């Protein structure tokens, strides 16, 4: 707004910034190699639990079934008993897997922490993968995969991963139904013995706890967890290879799913803070150029968003939007324009300041709940970092200059480096897309 445009009521200034204050925490490495981190946030009488176990190079279908059936029974409890015993202390556990890690997570009343840890230990050391339950869960997983394969967001993601990662383990992250049907309990017991072990695992406990006492509780429950398993290193993710736009044909689609991958760097890289800011300027928050352009100005889409995704083997920036079929070409044009503009012209200082405040403020918001702190601590620990890194990162965000951001934008956000995938009705969108870039079309596949 220009000075001549002074409004009758002026926007109140912000008060002084509050300094980032880290919560009280403690860490211990147990004799069996398990790292335990306990963080105190006593706001509500609960405790959050995250157990991160590296799973690089795990067989895809067996890994998915392992997560699906890990809580299906132990030497001493059935699946229903596990669920009921956890419920009794207000608790619950769930298991999930991706190419980096197997994660057990949950939350419960803090008075039930010892019991939750006991049950966790029972599952880790004595999961039995009973035949009947494995059969049931196999069918459920197949059904779930089938539903996922009918969702455009899933199909677009699948196509993008395959295009970006080629032969890397990250390329395919959802097993085929037939592969799942072939998984037997014996294979799950074997996989559990090989891969569910404490050596490189990290347990995070966050909540209304005294950190040292929580570490003692974890040590008491989990010291006996052992296993002669192995871990496998993931190869580094391959660099992006720009090429023709990949158009995945989904006939009858009323929207096109636009996905663009760009290079990025890990959290500890010197460019990371400036790249995070450049990403915000482009499409990483609502007040970004891309959202203001294709949503608030043109109405092409509801929720465009771009994000730097960090994985163990590498980082990538992914921008995604669901746009109306009839404006697919124009939406790509505006997207390329905004990327190109950021890559070739420096941002305005006030625009950068706004993104910087957002990045710093949302750090505070992210650590203001038990669940947020737990997920952040666990994600950091998974890449070898601790909460102290927050302060370091905040300092880098505070320091990044217009020149720094312009430089990284040219290096990482250049449209020339983009890998683009569009899922949509090829017959209707191909002509406009072909006017903007070389296009290679393929049929949709799960």
């Amino acid at each position: 707004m220009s000075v001549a445009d002074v409004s009758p009521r002026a926007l109140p200034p912000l008060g002084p910034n509050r300094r980032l204050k880290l919560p009280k925490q403690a860490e211990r490495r147990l004799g069996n190699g398990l790292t335990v981190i306990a963080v105190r946030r006593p706001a509500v009488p609960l405790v959050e639990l995250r157990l991160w176990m590296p799973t690089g190079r795990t067989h895809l279908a067996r890994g998915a079934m392992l997560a699906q059936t890990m809580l299906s029974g132990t030497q001493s409890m059935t699946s229903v008993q596990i669920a009921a015993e956890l419920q009794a202390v207000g608790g619950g556990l769930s298991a999930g897997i991706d190419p980096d890690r197997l994660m057990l997570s949950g939350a419960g009343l803090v008075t039930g922490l010892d019991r939750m840890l006991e049950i966790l230990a029972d599952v880790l050391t004595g999961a039995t993968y009973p035949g009947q339950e494995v059969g049931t869960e196999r069918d459920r997983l197949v059904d779930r995969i089938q539903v996922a394969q009918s969702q455009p967001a899933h199909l677009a993601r699948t196509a993008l991963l395959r295009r970006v990662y080629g032969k890397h383990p990250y390329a395919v992250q959802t097993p085929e139904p037939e592969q799942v049907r072939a998984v037997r309990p014996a294979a799950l017991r074997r996989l559990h013995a090989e891969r569910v072990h404490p050596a490189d695992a990290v347990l995070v406990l966050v909540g209304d706890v005294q950190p040292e006492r929580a570490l003692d509780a974890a040590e008491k429950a989990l010291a006996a967890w052992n296993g002669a398993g192995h871990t496998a290193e993931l190869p580094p993710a391959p660099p992006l290879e720009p090429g023709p736009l990949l158009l995945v044909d989904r006939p009858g689609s009323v929207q096109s799913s636009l996905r663009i991958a760009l290079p990025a760097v890990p959290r500890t890289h010197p460019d990371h803070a400036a790249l995070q800011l450049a990403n915000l300027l482009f499409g990483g928050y609502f007040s970004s150029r891309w959202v203001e352009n294709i949503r608030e100005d043109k109405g092409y889409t509801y929720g465009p968003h771009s994000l730097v995704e960090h994985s163990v083997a590498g980082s990538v920036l992914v921008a995604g939007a669901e746009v109306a079929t009839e404006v697919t070409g124009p939406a790509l044009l505006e997207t390329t324009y905004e990327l190109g503009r950021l890559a070739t012209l420096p941002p305005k200082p006030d625009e950068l300041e706004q993104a910087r405040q957002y990045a710093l403020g949302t750090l505070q918001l992210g650590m203001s709940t038990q669940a947020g702190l737990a997920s952040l601590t666990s994600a950091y620990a998974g890449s070898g970092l601790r909460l102290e890194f927050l302060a370091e990162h905040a300092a880098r965000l505070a320091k990044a200059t217009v020149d720094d951001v312009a430089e990284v934008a040219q290096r990482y956000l250049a449209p020339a480096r983009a890998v683009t995938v569009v899922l949509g009705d090829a017959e209707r969108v191909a002509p406009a897309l072909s006017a903007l870039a070389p296009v290679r079309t393929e049929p949709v596949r799960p």
Partner: protein
Amino acid sequence: MAARRSRIPATKYPVERFTLDNGLRVVLTPDRSAPVIGVAVVYDVGIRSEPEGRTGFAHLFEHLMFQGSENLEKLAHFRHVQGAGGTFNGSTHHDYTDYYETLPSNALERALFLEADRMRGPRLTEENLRNQVDVVKEEIRVNVLNRPYGGFPWLTLPPVMFDTFPNAHDGYGSFDDLESATVDDAADFFRRYYASGNAVLAISGDVDVAEATALVQRHFGDVPARPAPDRPDFAEPDLTAERRSSYTDALAPLPAVASAWRVPDPITDFAGYLPYVVLAEVLTDGDASRLVERLVQRDRAVTSLGGYVGFMGDPFDVRDPTALLLQAHLPPGGDVDKVLRTVDEELDRLATDGPTDGELARTQARMATHLLRDTDAVLGRALRMAVLEQQRGEPGLLNDLPRLVGEVTDEQVRAAAATLRPERRASIEVVPGGAR
């Protein structure tokens, strides 16, 4: 012998309430454990209040409240919130519409300024209206038209269960209705429903009560006074005969079904209503719950199952009429009739024998965790308290919910289960058109 029972803990968030001269009700709930605040403004208007021929209008109007206001250009609201390190959103429900921000606490005054400015009046222009109609149409395509099970069951079950327009119609709206909306419609809607007397402001988190009170007075004190409109009676009689309907979802690969039964008035009969909220969890929360154990694990008749009270899944933000819902996805070729018969059988068993030893206590402990976890987020407290103030004049109820849930008895759950009879049930079935 009774199973060991976890003590249900409580929170003690303080609550300050006052009303400005213009009728705006204010709730403050300070908590200085983190340097963040939640600010929520809730207007007492939602999907049920939309005029006929204007389906989706409450939601479209919510979008228009972000398009600039008396002292703010288009885009300014977003930039000012995010440029202060905060996040924002709004959402439209059956009985209310909310607008909210989470921010570092040094931005309190800025947030109040922004909310007060649009309470005085949004900039309703033809250009903004057309732009947001386009955006809303894309929102509907993402969430309903371009995906399997879009709008199931929150949009597809009400027309089976209810007969009157307010309760039965599609709250996302038809494209025809959205496209016919005019700036005059929007101005009328604002004048009628977005009145200071029809709103509640709640502030939670890192604030000083005296300072926050003064700032609220400064920014909202001169919002012109307009009274709350009379709220129409949306009551409908209960069903006396079973209703069933089905439709083909061209994108869905598997069959699905959802059923609903009416429940007591959440506001005027809270004590009678609460057992249904607990019952939904007894039936469906986790692998040890009745219906999951039976239908998923034992019979393998369904792939996934959920149960809750309120069509949008929140039992503590709805007025009458509302319902307890069960929804299930079936395996390929699954038999919906058989699933419904099994549900009846399990409800009969619960109505006859009551919960088993410890079954209710463990469900209540788990519910307490969920309730407490939601209130840990500073915004969760502001939103929840704003709605409790608006609908009940009782924001402090938030502190009591875990305990009240914990006081529901076996006998109450048994009696609630006994009312879920097939003849009071409305069901909607999704026929998969996308099976490969």
